[in-house]
């Protein structure tokens, strides 16, 4: 057990005012009653600070107050809890508290075999499940030296880009919702629902598709999917433009997001932020191009980048990416090769001991999986790198100096998904 830091710091702000005369008790309920009116409504943890950072955060200067945003707040995505230190409506400091959704997926995956891992990782970023599967499958295929049929790769790209569009439309909606606009979220959900129904026709599930397999995909394209896809593609571009047009030029929206929560290039790189948030800061890092992993080298699309790095840039990057994804889907449909969709694999997968890192570009950034095999039928170590985790890490840097009203605007513009952050 490593020694805990700062355990010996004085607990200055944490003295419970004991009502005079009453015997001291360790019954939490009685303690609770005595705290009422004192600091029960302060989110100060009832133990000495574990680190210097925690200590200085939980000590109030005069004129400052704590505000618990979440875990049950109308605008937190999932169960995120932000302890915000305010002076007036100005944010002084933020301490995100994670772990309300921690399921220990990595441990579960280490105790199941390679087939089962694929749908154990599905609920991580439940908005875009295919990408976790993709990362896991990539790393497993590297472990087992499996080559995937081209048709399977194309189907993966097709479904993946569809899901990327679904995720981005939802992102726009949620951003608008956190800025107080009621309508875009519903347009986003309507569009997402079309895509999700489509994918249900392909994969058999609406949300947690357990579709990718080691060495291919589970099931070929079918007529229902293709007809729905064609029907959607005929109006996808127009629909997206319309939904985006509700916000793109809206003065209020632009004023709310322009110049707010600026994540500049250097900081983004030092944080290791990936995905749209990094591209909004001007770094053209997109795993699909920077480190091609599927048939992406054969496809023609460009990586939109912006230089402002504020919430508006992050939003507009998503809008551009939707357009690019529509282009990619079009190309996939046009040069979709024939052939099998699964490589021939033994029934029992037992790769040789080794290590492999597979990474793919999810809607929120680089989704990576590092798996170690010890020659048994399941991964010995299964490490999931989730982009939302790093995006959330930038929040304590972005928020201070802004107003409380900007909290959710900035957090939403970073597009976190707590299911992925808390693993």
């Amino acid at each position, binding site marked *: 057990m490593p020694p805990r830091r700062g355990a010996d710091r004085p607990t200055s702000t944490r003295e419970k005012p004991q009502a005079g005369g009453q015997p001291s*008790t360790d019954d939490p309920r009685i303690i609770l009653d005595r705290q009422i009116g004192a600091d029960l409504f302060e989110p100060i943890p009832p133990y*000495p600070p574990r680190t210097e950072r925690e200590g200085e955060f939980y000590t109030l200067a005069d004129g400052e107050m704590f505000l618990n945003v979440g875990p049950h707040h109308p605008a937190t995505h999932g169960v995120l809890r932000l302890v915000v230190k305010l002076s007036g409506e100005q944010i002084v400091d933020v301490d995100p508290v994670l772990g309300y959704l*921690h399921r*220990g997926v990595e441990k579960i995956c280490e105790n199941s075999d390679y087939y089962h891992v694929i749908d154990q990782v599905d609920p991580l970023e439940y908005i875009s499940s295919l990408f976790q599967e993709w990362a896991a499958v990539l790393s497993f295929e590297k472990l087992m030296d499996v080559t995937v049929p081209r048709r399977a790769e194309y189907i993966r790209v097709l479904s993946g880009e569809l899901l990327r569009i679904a995720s981005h439309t939802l992102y726009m909606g949620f951003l608008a919702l956190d800025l107080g606009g009621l309508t875009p979220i519903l347009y986003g959900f309507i569009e997402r629902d079309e895509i999700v129904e489509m994918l249900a026709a392909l994969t058999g599930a609406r949300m947690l598709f357990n579709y990718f397999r080691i060495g291919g995909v589970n099931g070929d394209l079918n007529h229902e999917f293709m007809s729905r896809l064609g029907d959607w593609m005929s109006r996808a571009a127009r629909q997206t433009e319309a939904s985006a047009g509700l916000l793109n030029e809206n003065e209020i929206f632009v004023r709310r997001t322009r110049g707010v929560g600026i994540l500049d290039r250097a900081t983004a790189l*030092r944080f*290791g932020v990936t995905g749209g948030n990094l591209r909004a800061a001007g770094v053209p*890092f997109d795993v699909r191009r920077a*480190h091609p992993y599927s048939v992406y080298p054969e496809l023609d699309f460009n990586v939109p980048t912006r230089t402002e790095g504020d919430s508006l840039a992050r939003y507009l990057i998503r809008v551009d990416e939707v357009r690019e994804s529509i282009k990619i889907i079009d190309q996939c449909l046009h040069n979709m090769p024939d052939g099998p969709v699964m490589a021939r694999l033994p029934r029992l997968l037992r790769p040789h001991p080794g290590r492999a890192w597979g990474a793919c570009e999810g809607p929120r950034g680089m989704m990576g999986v590092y798996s*170690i095999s010890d020659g048994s039928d399941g991964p010995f170590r299964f490490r999931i790198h989730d982009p939302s985790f790093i995006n959330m890490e930038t929040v304590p840097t972005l928020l201070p100096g802004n107003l409380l009203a900007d909290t959710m605007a900035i957090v939403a513009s970073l597009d976190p998904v707590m299911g992925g952050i808390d693993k």
Partner: protein
Amino acid sequence: MDRTLETRLEARLADHLRGPVYQRHDETEIRIEAGSVPEVLRILHDAVDLRFEILADLAGVDTGEVMQVVYHLWSPLTSDWLRIIADGLSRDDPRVPSATFLWIGAEWLEREAYDMFGIVFEGNRDLRRIFMPPDYTSFPLRKDFLLPDDAARSPGAGVRHVERACAPAALADDPTAGVRRAPAS
């Protein structure tokens, strides 16, 4: 697979490498001592012919015998992922220099590794549990992690955050401290 990367790495990090540079698929892997992590990362980040700018991942690993810390880096100059394995940490008191001096983003990744493996990253300014409750006494992703016993041992079993008024430091000594008892009537 990028052969030139191998030569470049050997040229730059000759005296830090433990064992040869290992390459497979599009991954290049080097093993180093835990102590030499800062220099190696600094060189990889700054050297003009390496420029590994993006920290893709930082993972702790418990092989059963030793602990490892695994860094994945990306550079615009090569088509390979670079994997750095800081090997040979003792399982009793695993300690590694922190990578936060290069990548602030490593802070939470290291917090997670500490939370899951108990690896102490020296120099991380905010090394506390990130997923598990603050009074949690053991490290879930270790291979000797025993779930049922642990649940029994954890003083926070079923007790809410507000209701507990004792420091994790105290818990380490007396695991039963802070367990909710019947109200003294």
